[in-house]
Every structure is written in structure tokens, then in C-alpha cells.
């Protein structure tokens, strides 16, 4: 019995090509050693020039490169057909392709953006409720700096798919201010005052001409729209300065900008409301307080 087992083991042992497996194992080991050596040296080379993140990536890439080369040699030595391995790599590529759909879409969107040029570096744009200055147009995304100095990364796909407002494309902008005046005021007089303000304002352009329109009869006021044009870099200065000037001028001229009004109308058939002034001696008649004092 023991002899039968012994002979099977010897047969198995002699069947295995120990030489080939040994050399394959040696190659793998060699690959590990050389890979780590190379990666460490390359890492030291680029240490000064790149960030830690990049350095780690480079080290890993070189290690795996060297290891894969030695691994392939070891597999060949062990007698495996490399075609099978390459076939597996092909399937892997397809899987990676599916996974990187978004990135590919971003890259292609980026190319289209570069060709179409809806905005350039330095323009103020507004995307998806984020407004800011474009600081970089990269392969996968566009980087924006918001007015309060935050860094926003917008994927190119979003820019292609959704609406982008470029505030810096044209050299002049129109400012529309909404001014409400009391019903009692003379609209034409206010219009002349506002147009006079536009003429005095240094930032406001003479052409295209400023204008005043009555947009509606509001609940508490007559609503006017006062529009004038300014160079695009003077937008905030123009709007703020003009609003201050409007308030000052209307105050000076005694024109009322009304608060929301509610008129209480008792009706012609009802008696007027009774108003009674309370003197200090009548305060005793007031209701007792809700909370008892001596409790």
C-alpha cells in the first residue's frame, strides 16, 4: 500500500517540470525586487519636482510596469500561452471603458467647448446658480472663482448640457432699476428727474438712451422701471451709485417712495370707528393679568 502511494507521489513529482516552475518563481521574485528598487529610485528622483500624491502615483506605476514585465516572462517560462492573458486584458478594457463613460464625455465636451468658445479665461459666467470668474479651462472641467473667493470645479459635461450665462461677452450692460412712487405723485415729473440723474451720472452712457417706463399700478405704489446703460466693468458702481442718487433726489424733491399701504375702509353706510383716549386714572379698569402675582 505504502509502496503504491510512494510510487504515485514519485510519478507526480517527476511529472511536474520543477525546473520551469522554479525559474518562473525566480523571475517573479526578481520582478518584485527590481520593481521596488526602480520605483524607489524614480520616486526619489521626482520627489523634489512633484507633490506627494504624484510621487506615489509614479512610484506605483513604475513598480507595476516592471512587475508586469517580469510576471509575463514568468508566465511564459511556466508554459502559459500569453494570448489567453491578452484576451483577458481585452475584456478588462471594455469594462474600463464602461466605467469611464463620464470622463470620456467630459473630455469630448471639453473639446467642443474649446472649439465653440462660449467664454474665455477671465470672463464672468453663471452656471447652475454658481457665478464667478473663469480661471482655467481644462480637459475634464472648468475652474471658477466665485466673488467670495471660493474655488468651484464645474465638469465640462454640465457646461455643454445646461445653460451658461456669460456676463462679460458684450462691452456694455443695461441696469434696470425698479422705482415705486406714491399714487399722489406726478409720474412725468419723476420721469424727468430720473432722466436728469442719468445725464449727471458719470458712469451712465448717453447712448443707448436711458428710459423710464411705467410697468404697473402696484398695490401700494406706481411701479416705474428706470433703465440705463453702463460699461460692463462699471456695473455695480453704476447700480449702487444710481440708487443712492435716486433716493437723495426723491427725498430732496419731496417725492414719496411708499411703504406697503393698507387702507381700512369702513364703508359709506357704517358709522365712523369710535376712538377713545385713555387717561392714566382709567387704567384701573384694565383686565387682570393672566398670571397671578402672588403664587
Amino acid at each position, binding site marked *: 500500500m505504502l509502496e503504491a502511494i510512494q510510487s504515485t507521489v514519485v510519478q507526480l513529482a517527476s511529472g511536474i517540470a520543477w525546473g520551469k516552475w522554479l525559474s518562473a518563481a525566480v523571475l517573479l521574485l526578481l520582478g518584485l525586487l527590481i520593481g521596488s528598487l526602480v520605483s524607489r529610485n524614480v520616486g526619489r528622483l521626482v520627489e523634489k519636482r512633484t507633490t506627494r500624491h504624484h510621487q506615489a502615483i509614479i512610484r506605483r506605476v513604475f513598480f507595476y510596469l516592471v512587475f508586469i514585465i517580469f510576471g509575463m516572462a514568468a508566465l511564459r517560462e511556466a508554459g502559459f500561452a500569453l494570448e489567453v492573458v491578452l484576451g483577458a486584458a481585452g475584456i478588462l478594457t471594455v469594462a474600463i471603458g464602461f466605467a469611464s463613460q463620464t470622463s470620456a464625455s467630459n473630455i469630448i465636451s471639453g473639446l467642443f467647448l474649446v472649439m465653440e468658445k462660449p467664454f474665455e479665461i477671465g470672463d464672468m459666467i453663471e452656471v447652475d446658480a454658481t457665478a464667478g470668474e473663469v480661471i482655467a479651462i481644462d480637459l475634464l472641467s472648468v475652474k471658477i472663482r466665485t466673488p467670495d473667493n471660493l474655488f468651484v470645479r464645474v465638469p465640462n459635461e454640465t457646461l455643454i448640457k445646461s445653460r451658461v450665462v456669460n456676463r462679460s461677452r*458684450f*462691452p*456694455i450692460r443695461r441696469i434696470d432699476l425698479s422705482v415705486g412712487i406714491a399714487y399722489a405723485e406726478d409720474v412725468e415729473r419723476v420721469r424727468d428727474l430720473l432722466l436728469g440723474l442719468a445725464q449727471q451720472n*458719470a*458712469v451712465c*452712457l*448717453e*447712448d*443707448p438712451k436711458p428710459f423710464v417706463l411705467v410697468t404697473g399700478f402696484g398695490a401700494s405704489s406706481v411701479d416705474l422701471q428706470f433703465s440705463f*446703460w453702463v*460699461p460692463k466693468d462699471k456695473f455695480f458702481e453704476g447700480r449702487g451709485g444710481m440708487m443712492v442718487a435716486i433716493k437723495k433726489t426723491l427725498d430732496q424733491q419731496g417725492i414719496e417712495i411708499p411703504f406697503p399701504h393698507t387702507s381700512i375702509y369702513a364703508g359709506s353706510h357704517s358709522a365712523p370707528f369710535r376712538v377713545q383716549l385713555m387717561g392714566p386714572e382709567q387704567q384701573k379698569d384694565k383686565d387682570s393679568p393672566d398670571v397671578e402675582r402672588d403664587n
Partner: protein
Amino acid sequence: MTDVTESQRDGVWAHPYQLASGQTQQHELGYTRLWVTLLDMEWQVRVQKLVPDTDPITWYETIGHTLPSGAISEQRFVRTGDNGMLRYIPAMAPLPTVIKPHQPLTIPAGATCVIYVGTTLWMKICVGDSASELMELPLATPSMTWLGRNTMQGELCYASATYGRLALEAVPKRPWRALTPVTIINRRQKSLLVERFSLPTPLLPVYRNDKGRLWTPGVTVESDTDMNSASLHIESSVTAAAGPCELIAPAREQMARGRRLVRAFDHIFG
């Protein structure tokens, strides 16, 4: 070189004024009041905008020791070995100026007319023998406007309203304005309504005639059969009506030789 102190005079363009250290030269010209102070190591310039009731006529200048109130901030310039000599050089507007006559003028078909247009000058303060420029300032606050086919394409210009006088004698003499004769030639079959046109002020040099009035070379505007464009041509010298003239300041920019400017007047040129 004048060295008189504490007396009021008319200022003169491109005239060398000598200041001693500690003295201030005060000017009132156009809509601006100006103080230029010489100290041992620096120049100081103070500017104040005026809103006078009537159009200012003269250039009032005096050298003394009076300074304005502290409310007006000064600009300081380090002296680099100049001898305390000061010169004021005029300059035309740095952007093209859109001229709008107060009353639009109609020119019949085939007719020509000459309009005398005055534009506000910028003053350059230059020091030393080499006339190195310290700063420049407009003598009246310029008003801006947009000139273009639509709100997308065009350029920002200064705007100037003018009476568009046809008779030279009727044009008032102002030391802070330069006069440009604009010849408008209507080559169309119909009459031309001149509501506004663009004057290439950065390309105009400034001359002074023997009466002290500032002139620029004339500009010719020809409107052809095409209503929406007119060609502009700047003459090489001042018109003979100005009399003998000397060049005080060269143009800010030079146009490429032999090229005629074509400016689109668009639908606003009616």
C-alpha cells in the same frame, strides 16, 4: 521764463513756468481747479472739480503759497533732478469723441458745409527741461457713450454736445477747448440729417495760432450713396482760416500712412 509771484494772470499753454521750492501754482481752467506745489524732493498736485453756473471763459493762474483745504487729496511725484520748471501741454481726448449738435443740421443733396466743433482738452503736467510728464487730467468731466451698429459690437467713446456753428466768428474762444473744422460733404441724392458723428480725437495734433487759440487739423466726412457708412479723412495741416499756427502737441496715436478711416455711422446717422 516768468518768476513773478502773487499776481493773477492768464495761463498759457506750453509756456515754461519756474517755481521755487515751497511755492504753489494755482490754476482755474475749464471745470477744474488745480494746485501744483514744488517741494525739495517731490511735486504735489491737487485737483478739484468745479460746477460753475456759467461756461468758464478764462484761464486764471497765479503763483504763491496758498494751498487748498485738507479735504482735497494730493498726488505726490518724486523729483528726479529737474530744475523746478513746469509746462502745461494740451492733449485731445484719448478715445474717439461723438459730436452731437444741439440742433440737428440738414445738408442738401450734393452740398458741403463746414462745422466748427470745440472739444474739451486734457492737460498734461510736464516738468523739467525734458518735459517729462507727471500726470494728465481732463479739464471737464467727460461723458461717455456707445457708438456701434448694435449693443454687441462697437466702441465706447466720449460724448460732446456742440452748437455746430457754421460761422467762425460766432465760435467763442475758450482756452480749455480746441477747435476742429469738420467739413461734411453730402454726395447722396437725398439730403443728409447730421445728428451725430464720431471725431477721431486721439489722431489729432494740437496747434496754437498767433491769437492764442487752439486748433486741430480739419476733418472731412464724406457720405456716399450708402447711407450707413461715411469715410473720414484727417487733413495734414491746419485750415488757413486759423492763421499762422505752431504745433504744441502731437497726436496721441498715429494712423497708418495713407489709410482712410471708414467709420460706420449705422442707422443713427439719419
